[in-house]
Structures are given as C-alpha cells and as structure tokens.
C-alpha cells in the first residue's frame, strides 16, 4: 500500500487536489493561510482503488454491465451494498486509527471528539457541475471504528442512483473512482449555513447572500428549511435585505441514541428560536467580509459553508467548513457589480448628489 494513505490537514495544500479532492485541498490551503477551519485528516483517493478486493471489483463490473442496470435504483442498491459489505483491511484501520489519535491530541478533545466524515470527489468540481450534497456526508461520529465504517459508506455513496445517472449522462465510466474522504472535527454549531459571493438568483456581483439556520448546516444545505436570508452590499458591507426564514426544523445531535452512536438528525426547532434571526448583523457582515476575501484569493465567485461554534468568542467562533466555485454563474457571462460607485465621504459629491440633487451626479 501507499505510505500516504492518510494525510493530516496540516500538510495538505492546493497541489494535493488530485489525491484529496479540490474541496479538501482548498481547506488545507485555507488552514495553512491561518483561516479558522476545523482540523482533520483525509483518506486519499488512491486508497479506494487499492482497497477494493479483486473479487468485489469483478462483481461490480458484472452488476454495471447487467441487463437490469438501466434500473438505476436497483443498480445503486446492489452496488452500494456490495461496497459496504467489503471488509476493511487492517492497514487502513491502522492508518485511520493513528490519524484519528493525532487529531484527538491536536484538538485536545480526546475521546469526546466528534467528527464529520465527508466525501471529497477528486473530479467533482472539475466537471463543471456541483456534486454538493450528492455524495455521503456523515456528522457527529465519535468512535474510530465508526469513522472507518462511514469512510466505507462515503465510498459506497459513489454508487447512488444520482451519481450513476450523472456519469451515464456524461459518458463517463460508471465505476466510482477517485473518491477521497475527509474526516474533520465537527464544529458544535450554534448556527450554520452558506454564503454566496454573488446573488445566486440574479448573478449580481454586488451582493453577497447569506442563508442560515440554527444548529448544524445540514438543514440548510439539504434544503430542509427555508433559512434566514440576508443580502449584503459588497462594497459597503451594508445589509440591504433581510428575510426571516420558515425555520421549523434544525439539525442537531440526537442524544437519545446513546453517546457513542449519536448522530446529527433533523428535529423540530423550538418555537422560541424559530422566531429569532439566527445571526447577528455583526456575524452576517463578518461572514460576508471573509467570503469576499476568499473570492478575491480564488479569483471566482465562491459558495462557502460555515458554522458558528457554541461557547467560543466572536470572531473565533466562526469556522469555514468548505468552499467551492459558485457553479451556476461562473460559466455565464459576468454580471457586473450593479451597486453605484464607491461613496467615500466626499463633501462635494454628497452636496451635489444628495442635497443639491444636480442631475447626473
């Protein structure tokens, strides 16, 4: 096996994208630049291909070529089951176990550490379409064995009906390859959500859009609620628009399942929280400011997931979980920033425009 089956986030840079996927490569790059991102490690994409036993591969190939394979639901069930049934090799368990121990040590959380296990397709962004939310992501896992099982689930998620259909449409080999898995410290989120560095509805580059809900971000990214909404003027940081969401559910840790196996689940949101905006204006502006910085560094509009940790002081509590190029508008011709030119306080301009109302000023 490769001696680098697992990479700690601290060593990951942009150049590792072919092995850890662009998502994790960007996160590593971000961490190295001093941003507040959850610590973690990545099981590299090569592992999947090394690990799956020959017999299982032959079986997979047979399934994919089967006459019944046009029934994608059937095919997906069969393929995923097959992957999930494969025993994990000791070398992988060792490597993941060691990385997990290192992470526990770095975070100082020891056995209390909970993680998110996220698929990270090496090609997901390069294809020009968003895989966001289509591959497996599992939150709140604590036990290393459980982590291993969910890494395998991530690999299996490469055979969902959606993923198969996608590859079919694009004339790609149906085998799921090149899938890395990130294991990140789970930020104990008071509030979480996304920020787009342009208006995803209109493509207006002058506005940043924040959507958020109480608890973990899953309720937002999976579209389970109408989140709270803010539109922020890029140039001034001013909040131009705010809409209260219909926040009837939230993503929280399900403590009833027992401490060891508790997971993030969707629960009814207490009424007293539902009525309250889940971010302060200060938090909204900070998130937008940082997202704009990210866009600046990346050179294209970004779609950024973030979470605000409980029990940490602002702005240390704001974590950036992942970011990727915004896919809807980046292929379209750029819509210029539609806000009027910058308005520093120039007494002459203000007098002419705002008070004397001279036409054309």
């Amino acid at each position, binding site marked *: 096996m490769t001696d680098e089956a697992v990479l700690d986030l601290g060593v990951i840079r942009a150049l590792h994208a072919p092995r850890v996927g662009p998502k994790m490569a960007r996160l590593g790059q971000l961490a190295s630049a001093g941003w507040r991102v959850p610590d973690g490690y990545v099981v590299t994409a090569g592992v999947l291909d090394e690990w799956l036993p020959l017999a299982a591969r032959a079986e997979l190939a047979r399934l994919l070529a089967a006459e019944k394979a046009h029934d994608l639901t059937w095919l997906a069930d069969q393929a995923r089951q097959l992957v999930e049934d494969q025993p994990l090799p000791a070398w992988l368990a060792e490597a993941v176990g060691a990385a997990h121990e290192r992470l526990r040590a770095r975070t100082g959380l020891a056995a209390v550490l909970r993680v998110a296990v996220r698929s990270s397709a090496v090609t997901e962004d390069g294809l020009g379409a968003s895989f966001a939310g289509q591959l497996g992501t599992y939150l709140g896992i604590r036990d290393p064995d459980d982590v291993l099982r969910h890494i395998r689930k991530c690999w299996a998620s490469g055979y969902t009906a959606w993923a198969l259909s996608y590859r079919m449409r694009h004339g790609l080999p149906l085998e799921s390859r090149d899938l890395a898995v990130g294991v990140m410290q789970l930020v104990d989120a008071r509030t979480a959500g996304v920020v787009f560095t342009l208006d995803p509805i209109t493509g207006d580059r002058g506005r940043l859009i924040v959507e958020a809900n109480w608890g973990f971000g899953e309720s937002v990214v999976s579209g389970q609620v109408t989140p709270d909404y803010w539109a922020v003027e890029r140039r001034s*940081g001013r909040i131009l628009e705010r809409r209260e969401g219909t926040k009837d559910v939230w993503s929280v840790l399900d403590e009833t399942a027992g401490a060891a196996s508790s997971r993030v689940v969707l629960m009814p949101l207490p009424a007293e929280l539902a009525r309250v905006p889940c971010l302060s204006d200060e938090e909204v502006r900070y998130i937008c400011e940082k997202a704009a910085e990210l866009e600046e560094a990346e050179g294209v509009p970004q779609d950024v997931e973030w979470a605000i940790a409980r029990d940490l002081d602002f702005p240390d509590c704001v974590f950036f979980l992942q970011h990727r190029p915004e896919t809807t508008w980046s292929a379209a011709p750029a819509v210029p920033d539609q806000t009027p030119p910058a308005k520093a306080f120039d007494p002459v301009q203000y007098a002419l425009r705002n008070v004397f109302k001279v036409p054309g000023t």
Partner: protein
Amino acid sequence: MPADSPRVFPVDEFVRDELYPGYRQAFGSQPFVAGPVRPFSKADNARYWLRDSLHFSEGMVPASIALLDDAQTWGAQLGAEIVGVPPTRGSVNRLAGTHVYIGTIDVDTDWQMQSRAARFGEYVSPILADFDRYWGMRAAELQAAYDHFDALDLTSMDPGQLWTTVKDAYAFHRRAWFIHFEVMYVLTANYLAFYGLAEEIGLAGSQVSGFLAGEQTFYGRTDEELWKLAAHARELGVSEPLLRQAPRSVRANIEALAHGKTWWRELEEFLATFGWRTEETCRIDTPSWIEDPSPALERIASFLARPAGFDFDAARAAAIAERDARIDDARRAVNGDDLARFDQALASNRAANFAWWNEEHNYLIDRRAAIPVRLATLELGARLSDAGRISRPEDLFFLFKPELFEVMESDGTAWANLAALVPDRRAYFEHWRERGPSLPTMLGTIPLTVPDPIMIEVFGLSGHFLETLRGGTGGGEAGPASAGGGEIAEIRGFPAAKGVAEGVARVITTVGDLHTVLPGEILVCGGTTTEWTPAFGIIAACVCDTGGSLTHAAIVSREYGIPCVVGTAVATQAIKTGDRVRVDGRAGTVQVLA
C-alpha cells in the same frame, strides 16, 4: 502744454440720457449678479418672501440700504456665483416699508445646475481640505482692516482724508461681506453633505448640527467676561447703580463709589476687546458698545439678578457630553462602510465646522463690518452740521449712499434739497419701525415645501412651519392663534434643544427690550441673534417663531443647557407675556397652561 499736466479728450459729444433710443437704464440695475434691494412689486406675489427679523428687526434707514445691498443681496449673489452653488444664485431682498424680506434665487435649468456643479467642486474642495489656514487668512485680512480703521483719528483728518476714509470704509464693507458669503457657501456645502449622508444612512439630517456643538466662540468668551464683570461688581460693591439706574447715567454714580473707578476701568478693558459690535447687522444707525456700552451694562445688570452666576465650564462640559452621547448613539446605529463615511464626514465637519462658524464669524463681519462706515459718516455728519448743511450728524443716515456720494463728489450745491428730505424720511422710518412687530412672517405665495436645506435649518422653513402659515391668515396681526375662535393649547415646532421647563412667558419682539426678561422666565420671540445670547444664561427656556436645527437659538440653547423649540410659526402671537407655559425641547411642543 507741459508734458506732465493732465490731458483731456472730452466725452461731451457722447453724453446721453438713454443707452439706446427708448431705453433708459434704471438706477441700480447694473452692479448686481441678480438684482438689488427693491421695494415689492406685484410680480413678487408669485413667490415667497420671508421676513428677516433675525438680522434686521427694526427696519433700515436709507444709508443702511447700501450696507444691506453689500451683504444679503450683492454679497450673497456674488458668493453663490463664485463658489458655483448649483441650486441657488444667492438671495434677493425686498422692503416692506423699511423692513427686510428675503427670497432665494433658484437655478432652474439643468444645464445651469450642471455647469455650476462642474466648477463647484474645484472651488470648494481645496478650501475644505485646509479650512483652518483658509479662514485664518480671511480672519487676518479682516482684522488687519479693523486695525487700520480703529487706529484712525477721524477728528484731525482734513476733509479729503475723511471722505477717502468713508469710501475706504464702504469698500471694506463690501469686501467683508463677500468673504462672509464665500466662506458660508463653502461651509454650507460641507454641512449639507453631512446632512445628506446622515439621511442616506438612516439618521435624521437635522441631528447633524448637534454633532458639531460644544465649540468655544468669541461671543461665548464675551458672555463669560460679562459674567465675570457682574461678579466683580458684586465684590466691589458697585451693583446698586447697575441695578437701579438707566445705563446712560450709570457711570458717574459708579465712579462715585469706593471701588467704582476700578470696576469701570475693567469694563473699559473689556470693551476694548469685546466692544466692537453693534446690536444688529448692516444698521448704520446702531452704535457699537465702544460708543454706547448700554447693552453690556444691561446684560451685567440682568446677570446680577442671578447671584449664583453661570457655570460656563459645567455648561460646556455638559454640552460636550451631550454632543458625544448623540454621536455615540448615531455611530451605534450605523456600521461598515456607512460608519466609515460617518466618521469621515464628522472629521470633515469638525475641521470645517459650519455650526461653529455660523456664530463665530459675527464678531468679524456681521456686527462689526459697518462700524468704520458708521464712525466716518458720523464724523462727516458732525462737520456738515457744524457748517450748517444739515441739522445734526445722524441726518446723514437718512441719505442714500448714491445721494451722499453724488453730493460729496460734486460742487455740494445740492445739500439744501437733500437736507429738506430728512424730516420726512425720519418720520417714515419711525412709522415703519412701529409697524415692524405686526408685519407678516411671510409674504407672497407660501410654498408647500422649500427645497433649500439652509432655508429649512437656519430660517426654519420646514413643512410644518409652512403648513402652519398656510393654515392661518398669513401670520399677520390676525394670525392662526385666533383663527377659529379657539385658543391654541399646544404649539408645535422643531425640537432644538432637549429638556422640559415650565414658567412665565416673556414675549420680546426687539432686542432692545431684552433687558426686561427676568431670571427663570421663558423667552418667546421671533428669532434670536448673537445679541440675544446673554439672555440664555438667565432664561428657563426659549421658544421662537422661526428657525431650525442650525438657528442661533438652537445652537446657543444647547450650549447653555436649556430647552428650546424653534420654527413654531405662531408662538409670539399665540403666547402673551405672563402666560404660564410648558416647553418640551425633546418633543418640540409648547403648552399654554393658563
């Protein structure tokens, strides 16, 4: 002909009464950007005219009209033209009898607005960027002129020198007023820009003047000195004559007391610095405190009625604390880029502070610029009356400047005709002086709104003010107070300075009656100017017919920490001296209790 003797090429052949056949130029039609002081004509019904009792409460004698031309007419027009203020070409004045009304000259084509806007920034920006130096230069120029005029020994001049001095004094007066409006329009731009920014970021524009409060002014120092003189009068045992005798006869009685001479010397030292001021603007007929210290003595007497004195340090500290609290409140309400712009605007307006300058410039311009003209004219008048040309020196105040110049620069044979006009003109002035308090606040067509923020914030032409006037009969003798037969129980205006006070009203229509105000009373008046400032140390509250957030009464009330409501339109008519009233300076209301 010797080479050094003058040579004349006669113009006689070209002398005409008409410029062209059928066209004779009207008097005064040339030297103005927009138009000189004139009486009303029927066409003036089409626009609004505001009575300017703020600056000229008692009317103008003929010689004052040239000074008014220099100031609110020519000075404003030239200032607006040179600065390039886009929406206005300054102000015009009309006279109702001898009383001054002001109107604005709107620029009403887009092209003119835009072409003025294009040069406006070039003129204004460098001045605002370095305002201290710029105003320092102008103030030094004015001060140098005063040093020149004040040092002249008029009585020992030969006639030619004296006439030259009259002409120099008029030339200086005109220059002083150009400086006035040049600086005013530049500072106005800065102030209005802050006003516009405040509105854009969700604050009220009228809050802005409150952010600029708490700056010391020359007249603020004057008032402190007057309080000190009052305290010394008490210590030196000279209060009695000040309290009991008319100012004109008080000197001998004070100097007869043990420490009387000491105190009077202190007064004279005070006057040497602070006494170069008249009670109104452009009024050649009002003496300076140097000539007649009565206004200072009256103020000292009114301060003696309040033995505790006035704690200026505490009042200023409170005014600054209040200002800073308002700024903090405003800053909390905005953020991000808005906050950055707010801070820039605040810094720009502190460096070039219209609210401060609006009071500060008076001692260098409004209340002083006419004194050299007055003193030289009086000396000339003394000589002419000695020569039997006129009956007393002040008769010259009843000649128009062109009349005086023509007679002085010709052979002087016209004196008899001119002198004969004086009694009628004097009677005319007296007639109108008496009518002054009953003249309407506005004439012409009262608009729904006035777009010019200066007219709103300084003169108080708010929507409420205009609505109140439209609802009444024009604000004259039969004002809205008596309309409908019912008494007005509550009067509304602009909330100019916070606080609540209840007390007895004292209605004052001219600054000459200001000394009748008693400590703890509530001053009710048309509007106030610098001359009214000392009263703020003894009154409990102030209510004005006119005014907005930038009005003298509003600014001074904040410094003195008393409640103030301005722009009520009707207070002097709805309230009578002796009424018990309650003023709420935060709500902007005045209740007549009984």
